[in-house]
């Protein structure tokens, strides 16, 4: 008996590929987020190695509502903050900066000053990253070593300890 072999067309149907591709594009476009993926890093001190910061040993920066600042209880323009801190750190490079924010201020007010303090490294080094200033010991001064952001509860605890609460 003569059996005729039937040729089966072996091709992949690609007609709907364009539709699937566009559907995928639309899906990714809608669900993917071009969200901000950067920000200011902030390490909280561990309780075991937290040095006791005495207020008189620190530079106290108080952020007022509206973004104005008081440094060591004196009003100062924002431009004057880093030069003031530099002058103080040249005398004592370990001096911490305490950043206190008024509860009526906004988060934006606080973060602009925190950003300004973090910019010290950029401002105190030249384009090649070499230090421009030295402290009283002759060591290069390139950054603020400690920026502390106490919370209202911590401030109240200190006041209570000092019997001022």
């Amino acid at each position, binding site marked *: 008996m003569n059996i005729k072999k039937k040729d089966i067309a072996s091709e992949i149907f690609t007609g709907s590929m364009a539709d699937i591709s566009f559907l995928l*594009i639309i899906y990714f476009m809608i669900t993917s*987020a071009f969200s901000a993926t950067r920000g200011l890093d902030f390490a909280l001190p561990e309780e075991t190695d937290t040095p006791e910061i005495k207020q008189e040993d620190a530079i106290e920066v108080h952020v007022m509502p509206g973004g104005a600042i008081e440094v060591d209880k004196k009003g100062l323009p924002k431009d004057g903050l880093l030069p003031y801190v530099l002058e103080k750190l040249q005398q004592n490079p370990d001096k911490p900066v305490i950043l206190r924010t008024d509860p009526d201020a906004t988060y934006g007010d606080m973060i602009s000053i925190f950003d300004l303090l973090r910019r010290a490294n950029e401002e105190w080094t030249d384009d090649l990253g070499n230090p421009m200033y030295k402290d009283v010991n002759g060591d290069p001064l390139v950054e603020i070593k400690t920026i502390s952001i106490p919370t209202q509860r911590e401030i109240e605890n200190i006041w209570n300890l000092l019997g001022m609460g």
Partner: protein
Amino acid sequence: MALIRGRDRGTGAAIFTASMADIVFLLIVFFVLTYKVEVDKTQMKLPETWIRKKIPEKAAVISIAPPDRGSTIRVSTGEEMALPVSTIEEVITFASTEVAKNPNREFILKADKNAPYDRVDEVLDALKQSKVKYIFLLSEQLTAAEK
């Protein structure tokens, strides 16, 4: 003069589509590589900073909505969608649980720049009480002119 009358030859007005598949696949590859689900979709204006460090992926997120949306606090593990919390104690419970799983767990604070600072202070305090070590304050890039 003999005129040869033929049918008007239509000018080919076809759009070249042969490279469309390449473009489409290129776009798909781009989206697949950059794909990241936003766990917190709260619309807000982030504060602008000059210093901006790369935020680790899958860090836990705590968001504070703008004041006109009640400064609502939402929390997310970084993998699930953010859920609103009604009290600050819930933030402490959430953060403590995350820190118990991983003591070096990073947290992202996503707050509106007009959020009242006392609200932010409460959250920072909750994170400190929960022994969180690393916080990233989400921000937009400050332009050189604004600097």
